[in-house]
Each structure stands twice: as structure tokens, then as C-alpha cells.
């Protein structure tokens, strides 16, 4: 199965499992491991000398796993989706959490580059600048300073930079 975490894509298959011995293929590499189930929805996975305590949960949109105290979110990889968007990492900038818009730093028709801050929001008592993940044109700004925003609200719509094939980047800047 192909999975995505942040901007990175991975491929993982469980090749076989015989009792406590597990063989997997991760990004083309063979990985042998042993697994002990703990009976409380968690398990201990040993790879070589390393022992990892695993816990997993499914959400509608993602698989969440804990490896010791570290957690990872995975979503199914949508290969080719970005190519279809003309080099854009995303066609809109959305609110990562509920809050309030403090500043809007761009206007309709602006050309922006990857990493450039577009909107400053205040959430959880802190200011957070939301930046373009790739070079883009500002198609439409949908919020104004003072607006209250929900998680996932569209703040800015983006369109591809005309003839952007030269500066396609695989990873969106953050």
C-alpha cells in the first residue's frame, strides 16, 4: 500500500507472517521483524537490536500510529494529484486550526513564491503565519482581518503560475 505522511510518500507491504516472525517490504527494502502482541491493542516490534512499542488507531481520513512516544499520521498517497494541479502543492490555503484572522498579506492576482507568508492567524493564543507551499498566483482571498475561522476554512484560493513547469518542486515548502 502507498502511504503519505506530510509531504513524503512510502510504500509498505506485509509479505508474510508466521507466528511472531514478520516480513515486510518497506520502500523496496526487505525488513524482518518479530512481533509480540500485548493484548491491549498494542504490540512490541523488534527490528534488529531495536524494540518499538506500537499502538495504532484508524480515523476516517488517516491511520495514526505510535512508535514509543512518537506518533505518525498516514493518509493514502494520491500519486499524480499534484501534477494535475499544475505544480501547485495545494489549490487552497486552509486554516490548520480554529482561530481569528489577524493580517492578510496578499491580494487577488499577486504572484507568490514557496514559503511566502500569506495570512497571519491567531489561534491558541499564538500568532501563526500561513505560507504558500509552492509558487502560485493568488486567485482569491476569502477572508479579512478580524474574521473568525473554523478548522479547515478556506482562507486563500491559489492557481498555478503561468508556465510553472520550470519550478515544479516535489516537496512543498513550509
Amino acid at each position, binding site marked *: *500500500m502507498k*502511504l503519505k505522511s506530510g509531504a513524503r510518500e*512510502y510504500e*509498505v*507491504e*506485509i*509479505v*508474510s507472517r508466521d*507466528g*511472531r516472525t*514478520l516480513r*515486510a517490504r*518497506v520502500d523496496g*527494502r526487505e*525488513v524482518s*521483524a518479530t512481533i509480540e*502482541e500485548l*493484548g*491491549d*491493542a*498494542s*504490540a512490541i*516490534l523488534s*527490528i534488529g537490536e*531495536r524494540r*518499538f*512499542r*506500537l*499502538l*495504532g*488507531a*484508524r*480515523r*476516517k481520513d488517516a*491511520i*495514526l*500510529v*505510535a*512508535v*514509543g*512516544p*512518537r*506518533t*505518525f*499520521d*498516514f493518509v*493514502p498517497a494520491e500519486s499524480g494529484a499534484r501534477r494535475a494541479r499544475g505544480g501547485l502543492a495545494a489549490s487552497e490555503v486552509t486554516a*490548520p*486550526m*480554529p*482561530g481569528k484572522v489577524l493580517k492578510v498579506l496578499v491580494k487577488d492576482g499577486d504572484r507568490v513564491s514557496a514559503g511566502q507568508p500569506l495570512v497571519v492567524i*491567531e*489561534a*491558541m*493564543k*499564538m*500568532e*501563526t503565519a500561513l505560507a504558500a507551499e509552492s509558487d502560485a498566483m493568488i486567485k482569491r482571498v476569502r477572508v479579512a482581518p478580524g474574521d473568525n475561522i473554523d*478548522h479547515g476554512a478556506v482562507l486563500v484560493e491559489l492557481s498555478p503560475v503561468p508556465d510553472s513547469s520550470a519550478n515544479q518542486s516535489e516537496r512543498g515548502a*513550509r
Partner: protein
Amino acid sequence: MAVRKLKVLLVANRGEIALRIIRTARAMGLRTVAVYSEPDANSAHVAAADDARLIGPAEAAKSYLNIAAIIEAARETGADAIHPGYGFLSERPDFARAVDASGIIFVGPRAAAMAQLGDKVAARKLAIAAGVPVVPGIETAEPAAARAFAAREGYPILVKAAAGGGGRGMRVVEAEAGLDAALEAASREALAAFGDGRVFVEKYLARPRHIEVQFLGDEHGTVITMGERDCSIQRRHQKIVEESPAPGLGAATRDAMLAAATRLAQAVGYTNAGTAEFLLDRDQAGEKFYFLEVNARLQVEHPITEIRFGCDLVAEQIKIARGEKLAAPGVPRGHAIECRINAEDAAAGFRPATGSVLELRVPAGPGVRFDSYLTRGSEVGAFYDGLLGKLITHGADREQARARMLGALDEIAILGVTTTAGFLRDVIASEAFADADLSTRFIEEHCSGWPSEDRAMSEAALIAAALTAAGALGAGSGQRAISNSSGETTDRSPWRALRGFELWRRP
């Protein structure tokens, strides 16, 4: 001997601290009252209290900062005392005064002392008068005055809110170019957080340690200190790892800090629990400490002091509020460390995270304490501070406390909200922490670029994801019934439909 009745305690707070205060109050035989905002109706502190009152909507300004609603809740429930916890109204003299005026006991310092200490400028004058050294600085929001000050003392300088604490509105300015923006932003954040836009500008010490002294004062004029805490490991000027005692601190410096804290408390006739914060600078000439501020409340990191001194600081606060006389502090034992588990993404500049807790595994064992309000199903929203829990370990010495912290962090798992637990594990495991190479720059010096590439861990995570998708790990594995907040079931899961996936027979 108690001089006044205190039978019903209202806790004007939420989260782990409300729960922690309720636990102590119950153990003392008090009735407890929780207050809560709409999204907190199912929160652990509400369930733990004997009685609870809704005080408003999610917005803190209309609920946990709503003085009238809180006092009304106290009247309705027959509460004779209010504990403010930390944050929210804990350092608001107007709240302490309003509680007093309602004939209710405020479990904390008197409003006048709080007002004097809570204003950084007044507190600084007080420190100077009490013979406690201070860092050079001025109060101003005027760019011209700040520029003149910086020209005198040299960059970098620190801009911070004159009111409040906790590092809100605090900014380091490296050069003149960033000064105007920093003053403006600090003033705006200060106004939003504390309703007071005044800012303070001071010389920035390059690599100080943050060391603070716990003190208690009673109505009979007694002031005692209970050792120090090193809280140098901070991100965005907010503490994330604390320990006691401060490793390697010279005995003479420690004694001088404890004496300075006592003088500060005595200078304002301080009653109840407070903390004197200092910055420690070290050069060829030796250790020098400077007054930072006094926090006129219980601190987040108070448990490490409790564990070492074998006391319950909330119980002491309640006894002081009853008018009792303080007993001499116990003899401190061993070493204690606290890690703050925050709802944040450490890999993305500690950006706040939200979500609902799908799975939770809490640590336990000898010398391990976990103060948290989380349960499976807890919703972590964007309305309040992101502190989910405090993991505290105790050992006979620092190394044992550290080893226990590592073990406890390996046991903890919170799924559904990104937390700092994994980051903290790497901090505690680092050579710099093991060597106690502490300064407020610890994170930028030792943890930038976190997380480093760890192939085995990535493989483990991907294998775990594949197992979870197959229903072989987590909710849905074995015979467990599925019931998560979205009401999703195994059979309907889109993960079932993924191609190229082989299920195996469970052994």
C-alpha cells in the same frame, strides 16, 4: 489551628490543574465544585468534582475569565473558597478582590501583593529595594526609547509584556531592524492575553539558566522556601522540562537565591504559595543571578518540589488560606524531573495541534507520576493552553530520575493529537541533558532539525500503519468492539479497500 471555615472549594480552572486541586481537596475532606465552559462539559475535572456549574461558552473571556459567572457559581453551590489554579484568573488582583468582597476565601496571595508583584515594573523596583540584583532594562512601547536603550546596552534585547507571565508576548530582537515589529507584536499579544499592552525592554543574556525558588508565606509572618527548580529547557520562552535540584548549582549561590526569595516575599507581606524566578549567568568570575519575576500563584511545575519535599503544595495553600501556621519544610530527598506533554507538533516549530484522543496509554511504575486530564475520547480544541499532562519522575539521584523518565516516556502514547512526548524523549535521552548542559538556549543548541532520520523507526511506523490498516493493531484488532468518536466501524473502513494488501491468518 484553622481560624476560618473552609469546607467547600470551587476550582476556577480546567484541565490537569483543576483535577489535581480537586484530588487534594477531596483528600482533605472538602466538598469540591468545578466550573466549566461548554466544550469542557465532559472533561475529567467536571466528573471528578462533587458539583459543577457551566459558566459560559468556549471563549475563555466569557467563561474561565468571567469573574461574575464564577462568583455566582460559588454562591449557588455554597462554596466558601475559590482556588484559581494557574493561568486564567490566578494572577488577576481584580479577581482576588472580587472574591474577597463576596465573603469568599481566595486561595492565593492578597490582591495588593499580587498587584505589586504582577506588574513587572513595580516588581523590579521591589527587587532593587530588597537588594536583589536585576537585569538592566526599561518599560516602554516607544521605539525611540527602546532604540536608545539598545544603543546603550547592545543587541540582542528582549521585549516582553509588562503584565502576566508564561512568556506570552516575549520576543528577542537581534538587531535594530526587527525592533518596531517586535514592540508592536509584543504589545498586541500582551493586550490580547492580559488586557494590558505595556511592554518591557531589557538586556538579553546570551546563555542563562532559568532557576526559580518555591516559597510559602502564612498570615503569621512566616516565610519558608522549598528549594529551587531548574526550568532552563524552554521553547518559545515557555518551560517544557523542569528539574529539582538545579544540577551543579553552587551552594553559596543557592543559599543567596533562597534568601533573596525570602526577602521578596517578606517585602510584600506575601501569603500563600509563590515562586521567585531568576536567571543564572555564569562567567569566569563565577555564578551571578538576576531577578526575573515573582509568580504569585501555584506554578505548573510545582510537583517536582512536592516529590522532593514529600509535601502537597495545594494542601499547604488550603491550610494557609484557613489561617493556619506553616510548619517547617521537610528535608528534600533525591532528584525530580518533569516533562510537559503539550498538544504541539515539535517537528513544525511547536505548532499547536488539536484533535480527539483515539487511543491512550499512560505510564506508571516506581517514582512515576502523571498529572493529566486526558481520557480516551478527550477533545483537544484550540481554545485553551495545550498542556495535556505533566510527567514527573523521582529518583535517588538525577540519573535514576532521568532513567525513569526515559522509561515512562517510552510507555506513553497518545493517538489522535500530536504531542511533544516523542520530542521530550529525545531531549531526555540526549547527551547534553545527561551531562546537564542546561541553558534557555538548550532547544536551539541541541534539538534544531528534530527529528533526525531514523530508518528503523520509520520502518516500525510503516509496519504499524500496515498492521492497523489490516485491523491487526489498535481498535479493531482481536475481539475488541469498535467504538471511536466518529462511530466508524471496521467493515466500513476505506482502509479495507486498499489494493495490494494481504491479510494473514492471525496466529
